[in-house]
């Protein structure tokens, strides 16, 4: 408690202008930055998978299962960032049993469960059911039992049954696309619907969140595909990688357009809050916004991948560009979430001053906690790739 107050006294000394006295402390820290970041990666990865499945972009085939399993790994971790930031984490279940119908946040539990259970898990299960049956026969001992349980006791792998799996999986993917939009669009709505906060309150917020989610998710799968191929020592399917990069390019353009539109609209309308937001953007947010989010997260990747669309570039160079731009995009989108969540709390709702944010290292809202939640999805991903190896599927087929 003493540390907490000491931290707040330090923040108090950094207040500029006048802020309401309760505003010195930021309610939402780095964990709430991570939350939309993680769900965005989920939604984006899923959309990439459905490009292959629903829109029949067959060249993306090698990344289909990888994208789905990545989405699942990140989705499992996403709610923990929310729960661990709560003042009363043990009461988190209340959001499921008495959800408030007028709260955007209350619907989270249901959209989350719907997406986890009815969309992602089902789609993966249907896709792997046949393999579970085969693997259960091939393996011995404990692993045989595991795959038996995973197959839920089904054993029919006749072409007819497999066709039904495929058909059902297709239907679920079709339902899954709007669900993925809903999952992340609503995260945008959580911020966009707060009329007290002009930095958040814009109708474009859910749309921007959806497109930035697709950008980050596609970039993540692009990198993961390269890394996983490298680790497995197999050759990267360049047609697939180029296609992913092409979609990343399209999404970047859309996202950049939408975010610019939002800012241009703000600047042109120059409402009551404009003056303070202007100072915010050019002051406390200038590095994270102009350098990380816009320059290195948007413009450089656009130029990098754009150049590949225009000119003939050697394969080795293309890979390096993809890897670099992928990382830059991921960092850029992280700072986009940062600028929304942290930026929205730095200025006073009275529009007369600023507080400050200092990221602590330890504690439930500290950097180490955030790193843990950021690493955990990759651990789960590694485990799931071991349990459900997409490449073993190909052999079985």
């Amino acid at each position, binding site marked *: 408690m003493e540390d907490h107050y000491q931290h707040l006294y330090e923040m108090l000394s950094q207040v500029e202008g006048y802020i309401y006295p309760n505003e010195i402390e930021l309610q939402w820290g780095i964990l709430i930055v991570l939350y939309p970041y993680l769900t965005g990666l989920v939604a984006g990865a899923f959309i990439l998978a459905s490009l292959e499945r629903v829109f029949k972009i067959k060249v993306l085939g090698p990344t289909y299962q990888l994208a789905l399993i990545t989405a699942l790994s990140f989705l499992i971790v996403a709610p923990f960032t929310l729960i661990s930031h709560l003042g009363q984490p043990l009461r988190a279940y209340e959001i*499921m*049993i*008495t959800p408030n119908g007028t709260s955007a946040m209350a619907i989270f539990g249901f959209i989350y469960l719907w997406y986890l259970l*009815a969309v992602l898990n089902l789609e993966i299960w249907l896709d792997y059911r046949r393999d579970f049956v085969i693997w259960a026969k091939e393996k011995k001992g404990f692993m045989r039992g595991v795959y038996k349980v995973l197959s839920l*006791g089904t054993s029919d792998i006749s072409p007819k049954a497999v066709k*039904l799996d495929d058909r059902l999986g297709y239907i679920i993917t079709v339902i899954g696309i709007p669900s993925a939009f809903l999952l992340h669009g609503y995260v945008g709505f959580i911020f966009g619907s707060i009329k007290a906060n002009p930095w958040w309150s814009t109708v474009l917020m859910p749309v921007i969140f959806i497109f930035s989610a697709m950008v980050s998710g596609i970039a993540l799968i692009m990198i993961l595909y390269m890394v996983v191929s490298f680790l497995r020592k197999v050759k990267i399917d360049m047609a697939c990688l180029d296609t992913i990069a092409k979609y990343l390019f399209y999404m970047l353009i859309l996202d950049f357009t939408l975010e610019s539109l939002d800012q241009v609209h703000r600047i042109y309308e120059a409402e009551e809050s404009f003056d303070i937001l202007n100072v915010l953007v050019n002051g406390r947010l200038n590095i994270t916004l102009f350098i990380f989010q816009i320059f290195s997260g948007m413009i450089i990747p656009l130029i990098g991948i754009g150049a590949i669309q225009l000119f003939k570039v050697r394969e080795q160079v293309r890979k390096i560009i993809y890897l670099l731009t992928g990382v830059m995009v991921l960092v850029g989108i992280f700072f986009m979430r940062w600028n929304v969540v942290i930026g929205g709390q730095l200025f006073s709702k009275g529009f007369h001053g600023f507080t400050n944010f200092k990221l602590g290292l330890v504690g439930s809202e500290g950097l180490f906690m955030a790193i843990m939640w950021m690493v955990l999805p990759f651990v789960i991903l590694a485990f799931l790739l071991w349990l459900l190896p997409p490449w073993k599927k190909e052999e079985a087929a």
Partner: protein
Amino acid sequence: MPAQINRILLLFTAFIGLFLVVRHFLIPETFGQYGHYRGASLDDISSREMVFADKEDCFACHDDIMEILENEMHAGLSCLICHGPGREHVDDPQLGNINKESGREFCGRCHDIHPSRPLDVVNQVDIKTHHTEKTNCIECHNPHALWEGME
């Protein structure tokens, strides 16, 4: 029905059923009594202990002060402003936990000259220069009968 659909439906039904049963037992008894909240929380909040007393409580015993105050500048002011919360004192008058604030700083909270302070609402003096030979305002001013000592 094909086995896979069968299994999915079974699992989902079991999950939803379990959820509804658990939910039934977790919802607090009075939830939804008046609105989307725990009805009993209204009682929780309204049964909180009071810290400040009420002016009427003071005058129940201190009717002499009430009479003095009646035609005074400070008439209408709550005793608690200068004397502190006082609920404990009302409950047990033996407890002497009553403030008798009288210093320049305290009186100055209302009476020190300040540009933001409306002059028609309260009399103001500069506490830094007003009779600096005296340390305490009550040496001249009885807060219950302000001009008494001045005559």
